[in-house]
């Protein structure tokens, strides 16, 4: 069947090729539709032609894009929907399903919001009573950004984002890594997710194109690959060894893909990991980079949690830095795309939708294509861009807001570190549960060893065992989590993902409720 489909596809492309010739005024069949008809016939010969309507509906669920139907995104899936139902019914629900800090009480950084407010309403700058209450660096910064954003926050900017802000990002990268960055190779997007999707869209031509993705993974990757009609090639992270990855393992998976006729195009890694929370060591990164270089894979470095680090042994090191440290030909050849965002860190501005990708060693023709695609959506939203500017270019020592800003950040980070420990310890105290420490990111991903009776009950209910557990947890405690199956996990293991974000005042309560539920659950199914 695959061969037939490929032949049909080849015929379709041939016909489309004729069309392009026609467009240039060269010879070819008269009607474009004749060509289409030809292609359609070819396709029909090998496959059944899709219906147009069913039960009187064109937009019938059975008749929409297949890839879209097959796509799953568990972070806002079944558990969240059930949580919403219960919340509407009056239950007190704690949503720990999604890394959404400000929804759980985290306060935004004052300096940032003050500047944003002024950019939203520049006329406030003429009001002395407002200006008097604001630190002078806030006023200065707002004025500066205004001169750099033609038309202010209400106007479309450059499709890759304001050149000024891209320069600030480049300066930040230089400072962070010790290596220069080219602002022309930075694309600002509405959060990191659209940037990831843009890369996957470019990479995936059809189902033979495969992307290596860590298991467990953040399901943006599986969803996007599915949407694009590509193939996901999972490589397992080793839970017993702190969710580390093994290059030999990677190599074996890669080979498997190739043996199955796949073109393995790229390798994704998430550092710090989501949902797993591990921070990669320098050596890990070096091995990964070398592997990608040897095997000619585009390396997609999801580094959105780079400022969420809760231990001192493995600080964040960017893939770009390690690549440049390696130097030589590799540093010029390896195609690397790195992603960052304002949604995480201590800044936690998820709702603003601001992010960027840095393209390293990407073919200029491809960058042009990406620019073209970016331009169809005109430009990334300006407040998100402003938030990026404020994230990468912070108050400096001596600035009026500096101390307060650093204090807010420090307090926020220290609190996250404490909560990382509280959640990890809490899970580890439960019967049959083991939980690696959250070295970074925002999540706990404990492994739950469920008794046989629970597995049977789950099967009877027609649910994966971890979904069964999570639903029961939700009903009993109001805590909404995401089952491990939503992220991928080793066969026969079960996990759940929660965030470490419930505020410190209530996190002990969360652990208490969780503990009681787990004891009851185990009693019932032991």
């Amino acid at each position: 069947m695959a061969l037939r489909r490929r032949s049909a596809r080849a015929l379709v492309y041939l016909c489309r090729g004729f069309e392009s010739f026609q467009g240039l005024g060269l010879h070819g069949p008269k009607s474009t539709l004749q060509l289409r008809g030809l292609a359609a016939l070819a396709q029909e010969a090998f496959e059944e032609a899709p219906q147009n309507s069913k039960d009187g509906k064109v937009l019938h669920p059975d008749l929409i894009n297949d890839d879209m139907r097959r796509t799953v995104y568990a972070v806002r899936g079944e558990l969240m929907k059930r949580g919403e139902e219960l919340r509407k019914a009056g239950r007190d629900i704690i949503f720990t399903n999604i890394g959404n800090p400000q929804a759980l009480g985290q306060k935004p950084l004052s300096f940032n919001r003050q500047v944003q407010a002024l950019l939203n309403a520049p006329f406030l700058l003429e009001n002395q009573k407002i200006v008097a209450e604001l630190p002078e660096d806030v006023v200065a910064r707002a004025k500066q950004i205004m001169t750099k954003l033609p038309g202010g926050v209400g106007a479309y900017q450059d499709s890759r984002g304001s050149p000024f802000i891209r320069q600030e990002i480049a300066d930040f990268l230089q400072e962070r890594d010790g290596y220069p960055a080219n602002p022309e190779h930075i694309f600002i997007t509405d959060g990191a997710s659209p940037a990831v999707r843009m890369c996957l869209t470019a990479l995936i031509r059809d189902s033979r194109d495969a992307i290596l993705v860590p298991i467990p993974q953040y399901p943006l990757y599986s969803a996007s690959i599915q949407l694009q009609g590509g193939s996901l090639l999972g490589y397992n992270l080793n839970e017993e060894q702190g969710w580390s990855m093994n290059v030999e393992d990677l190599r074996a998976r890669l080979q498997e893909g190739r043996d199955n006729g796949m073109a393995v195009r790229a390798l994704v890694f998430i550092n710090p990991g989501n949902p797993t929370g591990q921070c990669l060591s320098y050596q890990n990164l070096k091995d990964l980079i070398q592997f990608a270089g040897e095997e000619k894979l585009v390396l997609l470095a999801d580094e959105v949690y780079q400022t969420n680090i809760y231990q001192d042994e493995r600080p964040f090191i960017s893939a770009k830095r390690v690549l440049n440290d390696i130097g030589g030909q590799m540093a010029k050849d390896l195609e690397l795309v790195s992603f960052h965002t304002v949604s995480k860190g201590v800044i936690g501005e998820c709702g603003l939708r601001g992010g960027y990708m840095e393209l390293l060693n990407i073919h200029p023709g491809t960058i042009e294509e990406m620019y073209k695609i970016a331009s169809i959506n005109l430009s990334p939203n300006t407040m998100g861009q402003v938030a990026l500017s404020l994230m990468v270019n912070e108050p400096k020592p001596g600035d009026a807001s500096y101390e307060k800003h650093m204090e807010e950040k420090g307090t926020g980070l220290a609190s996250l570190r404490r909560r990382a420990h509280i959640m990890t310890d809490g899970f580890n105290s439960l019967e049959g549960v083991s939980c690696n420490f959250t070295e970074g990111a925002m999540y706990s991903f404990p492994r739950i060893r469920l008794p046989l009776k629970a597995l049977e009950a789950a099967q009877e209910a027609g649910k994966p065992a971890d979904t069964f557990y999570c639903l029961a947890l939700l009903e009993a405690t109001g805590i909404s989590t995401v089952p491990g199956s939503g992220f991928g996990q080793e066969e026969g293991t079960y996990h759940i993902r929660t965030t470490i974000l419930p505020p410190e005042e209530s996190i002990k309560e969360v652990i208490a409720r969780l503990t009681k539920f787990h004891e009851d659950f185990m009693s019932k199914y032991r």
Partner: protein
Amino acid sequence: MTVSTDEALAKSDAFPLSEKNISAQVRAAQYAVRGEIVIRAGELEEELKKGKKLPYGDSILYCNIGNPQQLGQVPITFFRQVLALCDYPEMMANPHADKIFPKDVLKRAKEYLAAIPGGTGAYTSSQGAPICREHVAAGITHRDHGIKSDPGNIFMSDGASQSVHTILRMLLRGTQDAVLTPIPQYPLYSAALALYNGTLLPYYLDEQNQWALRLDECKSQVDKARSEGQNVRALIVINPGNPTGSVLSEENQKEIVKFCVRESLVLLADEVYQDNIYIAGKTFHSFKRVAVELGKEAEQLVLVSMHSISKGFYGECGRRGGYMEIINLPADVKAQLIKLSSINLCSNVNGQICTAMMMNPPKEGEESYELFAKERQGLLDSLKRRAKLLVTALNKLEGVTCNEAEGALYAMPQLKLPAGAAKAAEESGKPVDFFYCKALLESTGIVTVPGSGFKQAENTYHFRTTILPPEDQIEEVTERLSKFHAEFMKKYSNSS
């Protein structure tokens, strides 16, 4: 964009991600509004910044894109006050807050903050914050003479463009799926159709009749496509039109609705310019209202209506805000839409709040109403004047005819250029309207979009310009344009 092209790099075939082997759909998609001419304009602007002297003055005049605030349009005060307070609620604790901000501004900001957990910095529900959807639904109900809109059928989005992507993504299964698209069209549609591997089925708008939508034309295109094995899935209607500026009559809209029902087509109603209408005797009628008022005849219509904060009299393009309202979609298809929206988590919250305010602005009697109404009227009157000025000036040019800009933000004149120009264009390897627009840019600094970017009837040539240059500049624009045009016509009439 000046991308430094490393010769060796560009020639290399070894890249997994080289231009030759990226997705074909990505390569096929085109978007002229920010295409080659605009890129060239950017280069010229850089040169001007560096102090280079150009014959026409010291500025590039961007008339290629509906980006009002970049050209000096002032935002609506009420919107900006509320948004500032939503971003920094602490400002409300300022002892002078109630003298600086009108009561209704403070009330509104508090309302949004109370209803959106985490304010503007947190992800909302993927469909959009309930309060924003409620305000949008209330606004639609009010606009549509009381016909109720359900907030559950509203999807907030990062601009209307995102909604277009979502719907087309869902509708298109392969090249056999075709969508009726007006020619000329806003090239988001052709680009999205290419990206999602669908087929653009053109229906030509009748330039001789104020760009009228001819249903007989649509019908014959549908029949032809079907006879050749295509599934025609939807009809795109842009009303008011972009780039044409034409506004449909209610009669016409009724016929369109009935046509869609008869032919089982989803109606995709791009209504982002609904607040930009300049002609007496023409009003905006939403397709939703038209369909509902038709009663039984239109009961089966599947409709997706799209709106945005980018246009109108608010012009908040950069903020990326909008919504789509879906009518008669089966519940499980709606669930798929929600699922798709959830992968990007949510649209930006500032944009959602602004969209809510667009649909639920200050009401008469409220503190901010007077200023709001004044700002709104002032802007619409100005746009009306500019539309008239520009179209009049364009019609004075030799060989140029331009339909009235009844609505939207553009003028789309037709050019009848001498044979000499066609020849020179062919030699340069470009369509003649592109050639004209490029020459226009180099000679005058005015940035426009060639008609080929929007598609047009064969052997016709157009360009699109916005009506947005500020009033004190618009005369300058028309002068530079007239001078250039006269010279161009002279040059190419003699040479053949």
